[in-house]
């Protein structure tokens, strides 16, 4: 069953000198329980699609539909709080919060009480293979792999149905990268999440259930 879909989505923006059509009439339906890889060269429109799927932006034409509701007609802040989570190459953790506090943030944003949020955050951190030792460490005190796991734990904390990942292994070594991909795969196959990974790494793309290729703003199944 489709949980998230692109319906004739186009996205145009104006730069200083020209108008750029980053996405052209893209249509696709994403389902729960599957891992999708969107591959393509730099500037092909991958990240723009991710931004539209995350509700951080609205398409110029067409619709992004989540569970039957276009993102343009919903509270997109609530959508990002509860239904979708984004994982980035640069981890993007709050530098002045500890690992545990970083994971607690989306829970507190949802209104979960501090004590409950703390317990839930601890559980999430342990679920991505980290121990209690990292709870009180600040991001700068963690390795790249550990930071990305904390970022995944934070993404999972609010129990989203859709997980978007932008080059999640881009800053990691092969072993750590493989671990992260395995975590994402298990989220799709065991937790029934819809995982969409934007990458230019074909090794990662090969592990996805579906590979989508983007070229000059157009999307097609590989």
């Amino acid at each position: 069953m489709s949980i998230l879909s692109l319906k004739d989505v186009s996205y145009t923006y104006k730069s200083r000198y020209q108008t750029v059509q980053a996405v052209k009439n893209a249509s696709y339906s994403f389902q729960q329980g599957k891992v999708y890889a969107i591959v393509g060269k730099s500037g092909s429109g991958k990240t723009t699609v991710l931004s539209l799927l995350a509700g951080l932006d609205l398409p110029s034409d067409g619709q992004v539909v989540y569970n039957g509701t276009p993102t343009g007609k919903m509270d997109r802040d609530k959508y990002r709080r509860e239904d979708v989570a984004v994982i980035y190459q640069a981890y993007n953790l709050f530098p002045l919060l500890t690992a545990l506090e970083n994971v607690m943030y989306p829970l507190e944003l949802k209104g979960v009480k501090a004590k409950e949020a703390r317990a839930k955050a601890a559980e999430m951190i342990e679920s991505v293979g980290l121990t209690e030792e990292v709870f009180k460490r600040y991001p700068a005190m963690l390795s790249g792999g550990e930071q990305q796991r904390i970022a995944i734990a934070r993404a999972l904390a609010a129990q989203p149905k859709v997980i978007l990942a932008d080059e999640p292994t881009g800053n990691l070594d092969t072993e750590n990268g493989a671990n992260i991909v395995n975590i994402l795969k298990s989220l799709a196959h065991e937790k029934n999440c819809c995982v969409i990974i934007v990458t230019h790494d074909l090794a990662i793309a090969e592990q996805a259930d579906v590979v989508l290729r983007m070229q000059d703003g157009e999307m097609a199944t590989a």
Partner: protein
Amino acid sequence: MDGNTQGLDIEEQTIKGLEESGFVREGIYTRKIWGMVGPWQELAGTQLSNKIYNSPRLIGANSITPFALPPEIMDGYDESLFASAEKVCLVSEDSLGLYGLAIGDELQYTAVSDWRNVRHSSVSLKIVGTYESPFRPAAIYCPLDVVTALYRELDLPVLTDSASFILQNTQELNQFRDLLKNLNFVNQQAGSGSNYKQLSFIISDRLLKNATASVQSYIDFTTALYPVIYLLCAGIGFVVSYLLIRIRKPEFAIMRSLGTSKVLTFLIFFSEQGVLCLLGAALGIFLTLATAQHISAQQFVTVIGYVVFYLVGASIAILAMNRVNVMQILTAKE
């Protein structure tokens, strides 16, 4: 001051009262006595009157201030000689020639009680300096205590013919003026002539007025600058808060990507800037109170103005931040 001024006759009790009033920091006095240079001469009637009239008066002073031009004083003495009771004097340059005297010589002066029923007393004064005077005969100046001693020897009431006071606190000028009126002094405008029947006082507050006029013009200038200062505050507030927020752009983007609403993001950053600004303002007020012991209403209004404009600047900066492309910030590759 010159040697021929008639001056006033201020009783010793009055001077003492003013000195003990608490308003006065320092008093500068002159006290004159009539007489003749040299030993007593047995003269009477008109001859005596003419002799005294044509002789220099002996003026005691407790400060060098009365001289329009600084006198020349011989080595071993200085301006402090007037504060002592030493038997020394300053004479006019003309008098040296007139009496055939030189610096360092002794000059005998015979003071008289009055011009008719004369009692007299002599004092020998060492000439330790000269001064310039256009008058003939020019007065002989000596320490105030020397003349006071002559008054006492002649059994005369000790009268002061000029008194200047430096106040402890110029802010108490009006209270001092009231005290003088209570002591039956009359206010005499400078340059309007003398009052022979009553004691008069002249308040020479020209320096004070000049100073206050200068301060007032500075205050006026500062007041005129207030709008500029406020605008500067607004600009500084905007720039500081904008830069503080700008360096936290990634945090802002993370918050937005995690679903923090624009309103909540605004409130978080605004309250943070507000706390910083208020702490800074409180510290400024504390330091002002600690150093100046006082903060004026105008200064307080300036602080409030700064806080308001800082927060307005911060608001604009945060609103501007709300328009950034979150994805662009978060997907910037390392």
